[in-house]
């Protein structure tokens, strides 16, 4: 595998391999000194054109635990503000010896566009509303960890919220269905993409309908600008219909789990503190972020060196 840009491109086989590799990485992270020399001498450059806390930090932590060098590109202090083009920025960092780019950008397709300008591997850390494949890997890994099942056959996963603008939803729909899950999207029609009839999903506009039958309830963040764009009349009205409340949690199956990719909008889609949910995996999602990203970096940049040594 040269790049990780979308779950589609990765395919079911690649997805399962990375999830398997993540198990080894999680083991490394349990050690007293969670660091191995696997990627010594390799350089990972982070190119974040959009704000990020957990994705950027978990990639950087992952790179360091594998002993890779890291370059962090900070848009606000970079020459991008002097009008340097993306192409020149990528070429410059390539010249500095980057072996991989971890890219986040508000625009769809950037990880594919920059491929022409660098020999480095490209990892998509989020491109517009298109893809966020490492989040999907994190989520699949987290569900596996919680349910002790390798595949999700027969599992009912409900994704709730702003599907239309969500790269997390697009990646997860691909990944969950690849592993055999049945996926239901829950949102008002204005927060769904224009035509999902070709997606292998069910659509329901009423959260309360699907609460009792869901094995996984995956809540998406609703950005407040959706209101000014006319996608929902008010946040209050949205919350009434689509937020997770104490009452709704009470109607969940005993074994049902709750997930959220963060950052949470408390009071909007989450009207309950995650710590008050019995089977919330929200903290596990964050914790697993590092292991998953170690697996991705090792898969793209590793030369088969064993993971056993000490850095």
């Amino acid at each position: 595998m040269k790049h990780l840009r979308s779950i589609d491109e990765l395919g079911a086989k690649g997805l399962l391999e990375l999830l398997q590799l993540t198990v080894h990485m999680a083991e490394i992270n349990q050690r007293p000194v969670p660091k191995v020399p696997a990627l010594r001498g390799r350089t990972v450059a982070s190119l974040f054109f959009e704000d990020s806390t957990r994705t950027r930090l978990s990639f950087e932590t992952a790179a360091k635990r594998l002993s890779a060098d890291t370059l962090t590109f900070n848009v606000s202090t970079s020459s991008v503000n002097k009008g340097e083009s993306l192409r020149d920025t990528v070429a410059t960092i390539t010249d500095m010896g980057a072996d991989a780019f971890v890219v986040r950008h508000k625009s769809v397709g950037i990880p594919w566009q920059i491929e022409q300008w660098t020999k480095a591997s490209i990892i998509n850390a989020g491109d517009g509303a298109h893809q966020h494949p490492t989040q999907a890997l994190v989520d699949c890994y987290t569900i596996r960890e919680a349910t002790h099942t390798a595949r999700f056959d027969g599992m009912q996963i409900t994704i709730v919220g702003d599907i239309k603008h969500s790269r997390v939803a697009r990646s997860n729909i691909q990944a969950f269905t690849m592993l055999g899950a049945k996926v239901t999207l829950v949102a008002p029609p204005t927060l769904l993409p224009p035509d999902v009839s070709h997606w292998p999903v069910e659509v329901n506009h009423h959260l309360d309908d699907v609460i009792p039958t869901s094995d996984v309830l995956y809540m998406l963040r609703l950005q407040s600008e959706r209101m000014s764009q006319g996608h929902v009349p008010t946040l209050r009205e949205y919350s009434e219909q689509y937020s997770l409340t104490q009452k709704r949690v009470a109607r969940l199956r005993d074994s049902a789990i709750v997930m959220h990719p963060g950052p949470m909008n408390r009071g909007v889609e989450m009207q309950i503190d995650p710590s008050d949910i019995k089977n919330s995996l929200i903290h596990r999602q964050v914790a697993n972020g590092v292991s998953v990203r170690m697996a991705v970096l090792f898969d793209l940049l590793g030369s088969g060196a064993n993971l056993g040594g000490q850095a």
Partner: protein
Amino acid sequence: MSKSVVIKGGTILNQNGELRADVRIENEIVVEVGANLKGDIELDASGCIVTSGFVDLHAHLREPGKEEAETIETGSRAGALGGYTALVAMPNTDPPQDSVAVIDFVREQGKRAGLVDVIPSGCITLGRQGETLAPMAELAQAGVNFFTDDGFGVQDASLMRRALEYARGLGVTLAQHCEVAELTKGAVMSECQCCTDLGLPGWPAIAEELMVFRDIELVRITGATMHFLHLSTARSVELVRAAKRDGLPITAEVTPHHLSLTQELLASFDSVYKVNPPLRSSEDIRALKIGLLDGTIDAIATDHAPHPRRDKEMSLDMAPPGMLGLETALGVVLAFGDLEIKDAVALLSWNPARIAKVDNAHGRPIAASEPANICVFDPELSWSVDLQRLASKSINSPYVGRTLRGKVRHTIFKGAPTVIDGQAQK
């Protein structure tokens, strides 16, 4: 006396039929059509069609203002290589073509280049801002008879109604870029399943069709002449077909790219495929082709839109829409248009010449005493685009790696060869 030019061994294609004959040209005029003619310059046309030069209703020549992308000279040369002898220059220049000074400048630059007739169009509204009418009477006096705010549609229905009423008094044609802007904010590609997958904001067909419908009804109450630019959807074709059935003075064009490329190409994330209106579905293409065959669509126009490489290297949402068209139009139309050669020529030359009101000099029969604006093309030659060899200053052609059929061999403008054997002569 200028040198005489003879086109030898081709098949002359006129509206009333075909004829195998040589053509002799002197002093900007066809002087003789017959067998075994001799001249100072003899151009071989064996296996070729000899017909009237093409007329493009829709060329962005970018001068003044964006000479980095194209100049009137380089755009004219690209046109000549594509078999064109007349180009309607779109008014979205900087400054825009809303004053006599800019109109005169564009026309003069066209004459200076001397490769095609450059026909400046005028803005409908001042600065293409959609707020107040441009001085259309003054521009009409300066020779403009085709007005558009292309790049934008005129959003204000009341203003558009006034523009049509005013245009009727002047006897000029208004050309609309049909796009209801509220429905296309931030749009990058057609609203479809592919845009759902890619998470890109969609440009819905209804945004075009609503304005087509509105303007048809405005033409009905004003009686003005109206041309629809670059129609892209099946429903637009239906609306225009019905309007023509009602006898309304409406014409319409479609671009070569909307006949040949589909929306799924955006999945490559290559901004060369970003264009406005966006590439549509294969069903839309089918409807556009039926529209060409039954006369609903009158012309094929390029919407030639050069952009410098650095602009097209931006992300899909930031890159400007548009693609090159002049040098590839014929090859695309014959390769993908499912048209008889005669129909293709009608759509590329005879009809647009009438719509642009230049049919006194262009789109004429190849016959004695007619103006010598002529295109000679090989209808069978397969070829592909070589970006290094484009005459345009920009390289945003979507046809790299695609086989085109039909290539211009010679172009004669005002009696002089501008292209011989596929090579520009100046």
